Structures are given as C-alpha cells and as structure tokens.
C-alpha cells in the first residue's frame, strides 16, 4: 500500500519546511504542525477499514523479493495506536498554538514537535527491528530537546538527567538487537518471529529479553527505571509534558516492548513473570509516591507511573481478555493524561504557580479548565460510567479469571489509592473559593487553548463506546488479538499481508 510512508513523510516534511521558513512567519508554523498531526489522524482513520479487512498492510521499501529490504507493517494494533497518537498530537498541537504565543522561538518548538510526531509514527509502523530503533531514537532525541525548551535552570537539569538515562537505555537496546541479529541473521521482525516460533527458549532469548526489558522499561518508566520521569514531566512546558506522558512513554516503551515480546520473541513464563513483578512494583510505588506531592505536575507524573503499571500488568498476565484491558487502558490513559497535563498548563498560566497549596477555586475562576480537569481526574480514578472505570475493571476481572486473585487485589487497592490522592490534591484546588492574592493573568483565555481541552474531555467521556460489541469487534479486539495470538504475526505479514 503506497500511502504507508506518508505517515512519516508528512510530519518530517513539515518539520523541514518549518525549519526553513519559520523565522519569518511566526504564526504559520503552528498551523502547519497541527495540520501534519491532523493529516496523520485522517490517514490512519481512513486506513482502518482496509486493515480490518486484510489484517495487515505491508509496504516494502525497495523490496525485490519478500524478505529483502525494509518493510513497514500496519496491522490492527498499529492502526489502533496510530489513531490514538495522531489524535492526541493534533490536540496538543492546537493547544500549543495558544500556549506558545508569548514565545518568540515558536518555530523551533513546532519543528521539534513535528520531528517527534514523525518518530512516533515511524515506531508504530516499523516492520524491521532496526527501523524501530532508529525512529525511537528520533522521537526520543526530539523529546530531550523539547524538555529543555525554555532553558530555565530546572528544565536543563531535568533534560540532562532524562537524556543520560535515555541514552543508557538506547545502548542496551542496541546490544539486544546485535545479539538478536547474530542469532537470527535477519532484522525483519516477521522473519525473526517465524524463526523463534520453531526454536525453544534458550539462554539467548532470556538474555535478550532481559536486555530489552531494561531498555524499553526505562523508556516506559517501569519501576525501578522510573526516576527520570518526575523530573522530566514536571519541568517541561505543558504541551511537551502532555506529549511525553500521554504518547511517548506508551509508544516508545509499552508498544515496542509488547511488539517484541509477544510477536518476535514469543512470550514465555519467565518473561511474563518478570513483567508482572515490575508492573506490580510500578503500580504500588507510583501510587505511594504520589501522595503528598505539592506540585501538580509531579503528582500527574507519579500517577502516570502507576497507570503504566496497570498496562504492564495486563500485558504480563497474558490472557486475551487481559490484553484487551491493557490496550483499552492504554488508549484511555493517553486521552486522560494529556488532558490533565494541558489543564495543568492552563492552571499555571492562570494562577502563576504550580504549587497545590496555593491553587484554589479553579472551577469558579474558569469553568472550562475546572470542569475538564474534573472529568479527567474522575476518569483516571475509575468512576463509572467514565471510560477509565471500564478498562480497570477489565484488567481486574481478567486477573481473577486467570487464577491470580492476589494481582487483582493489588490492582483494586491501587485504584482506591489513586482515588485518594487525586481527591486529596484536587478538591481544594478545583473547588473552594479563590484566594485573594492569586497572581497570573485572569480572564484572558484563547480558544486555541480551550478547544482541545473540551474535545479531549468529551473523548474521555465517550471512550466507553469501545465496550459496545460492534465497535469493540472492529477496533479493540483486532488490536488485542495481534498480541494475544502472537505467533500468527509472522504468518499474517509474510503470507497474508496485502502489499
């Protein structure tokens, strides 16, 4: 299918065009970046029906024969995540048109933003394990630059720590790819999957699995590799935090981990147990450390660590139902967390501070920000009938069904903990009367910042639609079955994929 390279080509072209003409035309670069993200979302939505029909679309770049050359694969999981990522990126791009107005270097921001989007799209459609690594690096380096964008002291320090730890993770992944190549003598993921399906799990697969778990686990912020996340996500500008926390840790971390573990290496009890252990640690540690945080963005960052633990738990348990819950929770969390971070940016602009002790009465000062924050927080805590409840419910139910009631108990307890710290922190901030000495600019709100928050809040209310049978069969079950039925990836791509 010839349109697959356009997922990468359009944001990349927009980034280069912004780099050339951006300095003269200040407002234009933002509109271009938003258009690139919208184009990505549109193409992925348009491609979804044909992916459902054919189960995989393969585009071979320079392929004379199947197996040579670099291939790009769009299957159900990829198209599901492409829709999510591009939609969230579009919202964040529109928001940052409004947020970045006082900044004179806006074109640099939007060029880096488009590069990051191109890298994420590249990771999602990579059919080659080294292609995945290259685009992951493109997205990650663009992310490091974006964290340090306003060059205040805290941002630089956070960017340095994030960059060093990310570099370590990337080098571990490169070592893993090297050992995998020496074992399989091919870099194509489908061919590797076919090879590993016939070979029993030996020491090589275990070693490579641990290396990848270290590398991708750091990108996904699983405990004990999580320490860069509170710094980076709380010091970055608000739209960058939304992109990083809502999209980057899921695509670069969870998606890549799932793709390699389930489809290429073949899931074994050893790796699943490791994943479950790390997931439970993430849920619990993230939840406990979120208590008593006085900075609103740091609170959201620790909450991200906890929710990623949920997704990893769903993936680790491994039954089709739990993978369904994990993928659903992934989509939900992207929408909620980016909504919450965008809100925190609006709150910071409005009150001039990030300290939760000083923020009071957001709902009465600005109803849009207040009510969308409320919707996002309720969804994450898992209050029915908002979307977050359903995904957490599916994960807990799947744990019980798989015969692991202890994990279900942990998940339920952490859910109660989430409710506790969100309402401990946000109730005085949202409700309550505004303080008389509140600073910042009040009253002036641009529609560019308000519209994405409203759209994301509406989306978070209607993601419950995913549980209805028709929609669920179309999108969610297809995405989950790619991972649940891992060994069929090779057959789908090599034999059944439409070229």
């Amino acid at each position, binding site marked *: 299918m010839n349109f697959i*390279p*356009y997922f990468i*080509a359009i944001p*990349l*072209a927009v980034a*280069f*065009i912004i*780099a*050339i003409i951006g*300095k003269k035309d200040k407002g234009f670069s933002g509109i271009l970046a938003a258009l690139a993200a919208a184009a990505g979302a549109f193409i992925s939505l348009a491609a979804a029906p044909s992916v459902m029909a054919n189960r995989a679309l393969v585009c071979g770049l320079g392929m004379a024969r199947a197996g040579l050359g670099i291939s790009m694969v769009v299957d159900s999981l990829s198209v599901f995540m492409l829709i999510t990522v591009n939609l969230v990126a579009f919202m964040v791009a529109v928001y940052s048109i409004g947020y970045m107005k006082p900044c004179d270097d806006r074109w640099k921001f939007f060029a880096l933003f488009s590069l990051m989007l191109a890298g994420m799209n590249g990771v999602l459609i990579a059919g080659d394990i080294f292609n995945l690594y290259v685009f992951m690096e493109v997205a990650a380096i663009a992310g490091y630059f974006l964290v340090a964008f306003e*060059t205040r002291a805290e941002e630089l320090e956070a960017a340095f720590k994030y960059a060093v730890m990310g570099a370590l993770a990337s080098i571990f992944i490169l070592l893993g790819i090297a050992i995998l190549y020496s074992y399989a003598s091919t870099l194509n993921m489908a061919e590797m999957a076919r090879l590993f399906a016939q070979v029993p799990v030996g020491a090589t697969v275990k070693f490579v699995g641990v290396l990848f778990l270290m590398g991708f686990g750091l990108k996904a912020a699983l405990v004990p590799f999580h320490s860069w996340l509170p710094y980076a996500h709380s010091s970055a500008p608000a739209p960058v935090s939304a992109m990083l926390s809502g999209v980057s840790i899921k695509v670069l971390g969870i998606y890549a981990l799932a793709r390699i573990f389930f489809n290429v290496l073949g899931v074994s009890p050893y790796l699943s147990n490791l994943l479950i252990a790390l997931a439970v640690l993430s849920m619990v540690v993230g939840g406990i450390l979120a208590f008593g945080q006085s900075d609103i963005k740091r609170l959201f960052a620790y909450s991200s660590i906890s929710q990623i633990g949920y997704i990893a738990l769903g993936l680790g348990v491994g039954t089709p139902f739990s993978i369904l819950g994990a993928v659903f929770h992934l989509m939900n969390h992207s929408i909620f967390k980016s909504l919450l971070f965008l809100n925190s940016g609006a709150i910071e602009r409005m009150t001039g501070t990030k300290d939760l002790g000083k923020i009071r009465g957001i709902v009465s000062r600005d109803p849009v920000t207040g009510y969308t924050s409320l919707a996002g927080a309720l969804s994450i805590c898992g209050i029915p009938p908002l979307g977050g409840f359903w995904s957490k419910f599916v994960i807990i139910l799947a744990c019980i069904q798989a015969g692991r009631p202890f994990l279900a108990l942990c998940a339920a307890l952490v859910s109660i903990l989430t409710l506790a710290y969100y309402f401990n922190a946000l109730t005085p901030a949202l409700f309550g009367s505004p303080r008389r000495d509140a600073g910042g600019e009040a009253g002036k709100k641009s529609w560019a910042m308000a519209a994405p928050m409203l759209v994301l809040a509406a989306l978070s209310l209607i993601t419950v639609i995913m549980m209805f049978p028709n929609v669920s069969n179309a999108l969610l079950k297809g995405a989950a079955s790619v991972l649940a039925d891992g060994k069929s990836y090779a057959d789908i791509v090599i034999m059944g994929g439409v070229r």
Partner: protein
Amino acid sequence: MGNNETRGMTVIVKTITRLTLGFILLYGIYITLNGHVSPGGGFAGGVIIALAFMHIMLAFGKEEALKRLRVSRLRILAGAGALIFLILAVRPCGFIDYSVALPLCEMAVVGFGIFAIFTALVLISKTGKYKED
C-alpha cells in the same frame, strides 16, 4: 570566551589554514562521492566539510567565519537539503542519478547542520542570549 578568542590564533596557524582549506573541502567532496566503494558516504563527507568551516572559526575567530557563511543561510541550506532528500525518497524521479544526489543531500544536511550547531554553541555568551549577526 573573552576577547582573545575573537582575534584568533598565531600566524603559523593562520597561514597553514589558508593553505590547506581548499584541500580539506576537496577531500570532503571526494569522500562523499566515493562512498559506495570505499569507507565514507554522505555523513562522513559532511562532517569533514563542517570541519573546514570550523577550522576557519578556530583559526581566525568567529567574525571571519560568519562573514563567509551567515547563520541564517546555514539554516536554510540545511533545511533545503533535508527537504530535497525527503522528496527524492518519496517520489521517484527518473532523471536524477540517485547515487550522486543522495550523498550530496546527506552532505548538505550533515555538514551545514553540524556547523550551524557549532556556531550556535560558540555564540552563546555569558548572558545566555543567543546573538546572531
């Protein structure tokens, strides 16, 4: 980075730089074009060409180097090189010899890009503002 840097280095360095600059540029282009048979290619050639400009900057000081190639032009050249690269990759053109065009685009991107970043790092002064001419 005080006033001493901007006046450059000693006479010996300046003379040798003047003599060898053309050869460095030629060597960079040679490595770019011979990338398919010997080690090299667009990336290595681009780095060597950037080194030529950096040589001017180190030996003569930043004003001389910036007189030769303004920073705004660098940005446009690097971006245009990358854009041409992308267009050639997506839409095949029959009349362009790929084995020459692609390394040249790579060289443009890498060479001018590296020199632009080096210039940016040099121009950062103590006050933290990025000064352009």
